[in-house]
């Protein structure tokens, strides 16, 4: 009873505080990420917080416990609606199931922007600020093919993917890479259905070093002659490199990756990764905060990048071995713009 009383008092106090802020015409925004353990989302939160401070807005942040924690995200949306926020920035864990909750927020007059991960269907959100993950994959695929030159025709490719459930970001990068490399991807909404003999196999890594190491071991057991390795992100690439070192193959295998985190870009300088596609979570977050301010002031929504159904926050290929016909930036520039 006593705790109930205390929490009621606390709740009333908080509501009072929220009221006071609303009186001061401070615009409220919410940021809901998949988790708060991935450096990508940590960086996104930092970017949003800095931008909100700069614009004099107040920002509340929420996160799921683990990737896939849908329930916590729904609760976060409900809390945001109740708090009188003007808009929500969300990286959804379950891109289909979140849609009814998003609709509820929109009906209550909030602007909902998907960051990084598009909802399904993509127009369920008022706007999407994301990396073009297919393009990110295409860049490293084209770079790998150009770097191999004539040898690309009989390359042996290992694919280190994210998870068996095939989340969209993993599928887009994988299929983008193969397209860039010049391989027929069959159904572009699934990885693993290709029949090109150059692909030795797909293994899942959970996007961390341990998974990358194990997956690379399994691929090399299938075929020790692998000479090109696609990785879903840079931690998985670092794990794969450890395996290659253990097999004495670190100098004759090409590893490509996606993300552009600072340790990943550093790994290009150290020769671990050949090239990576760098994305910009800070930009996604700060653009999102600006869009909510705009919406609160004059009710206008952000427009999509021409030709795409989302706003492309850009992606750059980072490498210290530029290949002909593939645009790239240097490691120094990559380090300058890296996150995490």
């Amino acid at each position: 009873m006593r705790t109930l009383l205390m929490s009621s008092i606390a709740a009333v106090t908080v509501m009072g505080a929220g009221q006071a802020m609303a009186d001061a015409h401070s615009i409220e925004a919410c940021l809901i990420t998949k988790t708060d353990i991935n450096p990508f989302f940590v960086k996104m939160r930092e970017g949003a917080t800095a931008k909100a401070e700069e614009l004099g807005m107040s920002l509340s942040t929420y996160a799921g416990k683990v990737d896939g924690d849908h329930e916590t995200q729904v609760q976060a949306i409900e809390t945001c609606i109740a708090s009188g926020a003007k808009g929500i920035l969300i990286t959804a864990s379950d891109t289909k199931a979140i849609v009814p909750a998003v609709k509820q927020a929109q009906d209550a007059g909030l602007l909902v922007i998907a960051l990084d991960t598009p909802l399904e269907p993509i127009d369920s959100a008022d706007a999407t600020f994301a990396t073009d993950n297919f393009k990110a994959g295409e860049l490293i695929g084209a770079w790998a093919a150009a770097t191999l030159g004539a040898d690309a025709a009989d390359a042996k490719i290992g694919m280190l993917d994210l998870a068996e459930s095939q989340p969209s970001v993993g599928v887009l990068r994988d299929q983008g890479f193969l397209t860039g490399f010049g391989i027929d991807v069959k159904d572009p909404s699934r990885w693993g259905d290709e029949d090109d003999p150059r692909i030795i196999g797909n293994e899942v890594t959970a996007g961390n070093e341990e998974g990358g190491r194990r997956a690379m071991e399994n691929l090399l057991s299938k075929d020790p002659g692998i000479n090109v390795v696609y990785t879903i992100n840079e931690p998985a690439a670092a794990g794969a490199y450890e395996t290659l070192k253990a097999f004495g193959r670190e100098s004759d295998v090409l590893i490509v990756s996606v993300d552009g985190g600072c340790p990943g870009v550093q790994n290009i300088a150290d020769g671990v990764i050949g090239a990576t596609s760098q994305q910009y979570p800070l930009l996604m977050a700060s653009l999102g905060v600006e869009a909510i301010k705009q919406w609160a002031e004059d009710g206008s929504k952000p427009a999509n990048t021409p030709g795409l159904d989302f706003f492309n926050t850009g992606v750059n290929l980072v490498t210290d071995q530029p290949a002909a016909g593939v645009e790239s930036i240097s490691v120094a520039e990559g380090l300058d713009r890296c996150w995490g």
Partner: protein
Amino acid sequence: MSSENFEASAGGADSSVAEFDIRQKSALDRMQHFLHGNPAMVPVIILVLSVAVFGVIAGDRFFSMFNLSLIMQQVAIVGILACAQTLIILTAGIDLSVAAIMVLSSVIMGHLSVTHGLPTFLAILIGIAVAMGCGFMNGMFVTRFKLPPFIVTLGTWQVFLAVTYLYTGSQSIRSQDIDNSAPLLKFFGERIFVGGAVITTGVILMVVLFAVFWYVLNRTAWGRHVYAVGDDKDAAELAGIQSDKVLVSVYVVAGFICGLGAWASIGRVGSVSPTSFFEGNLDSITAVVIGGTSLFGGRGAILGALFGALIVGVFSSGIKLAGADPQWELFAIGWLIIVAVALDQWIRRVSA
């Protein structure tokens, strides 16, 4: 009727002496008896069978010294965690926090030596001490506050993970940075070539740990106390065993093993990675259960966990090399757990 013939009417009745009913024992009965006497043989038989089956299905790529030794490398860390997990499960407890303790300990080792420049050996000792402290905390909650181990470690699992993420900002320490400033952290990644096989010092650590704890559990007073407390805590106390002290010591020892696992995991992964081994706690429980240790406590052989971990490794490698979808691996391991426990129950129902 003559008197000599008075028993003639009983001539058709059964004339054998009263005795116990002895049926002819079937091969199945004999098997049940044998396994009851040798519980660690169940996982050994499954292991040998699965190696043979995958050797046929997946062929030479699976059945080479190189691949079989690679499986050892792949299961080393989960095997070490399973060694710690066995101790806890023998006391009728369960520890959901083993992997979280290990990861926390490894990031402490990494950050103290690489980021803060402490001597590597000292950083490793501090990391192991923290792991033992985490175990002590679990043990105190279980004994002093009489909380169920499942609940205690469900809580501390998340607390330790959160501390790890907060401490590191979820960032890994790169392999190259470790090579430059603290190569000793990778000691358990050193490779040893024996014929066509490649084993690591981490694999040797796992085997040594199992050997040591086999001896400790079977040949020392402390080891017998662990079994006694797990089998029947009240009876153990009546026999003069200070069961709470034994329980706390088990959690501290489990923490120590996790600390060694932390050191070995850096060698295995190459980097110090706060996001790796996310499901290590469940993997270790899987290995222990497949290894035939009873979740009700007091029964089971520690070597079973080693074989349990190897069985999972063999299935995982064999299914991949046979070219099946990775989902089949989950499917097979899931059934293996259920079959292992069902088999255990059947063996326990052994009748004379």
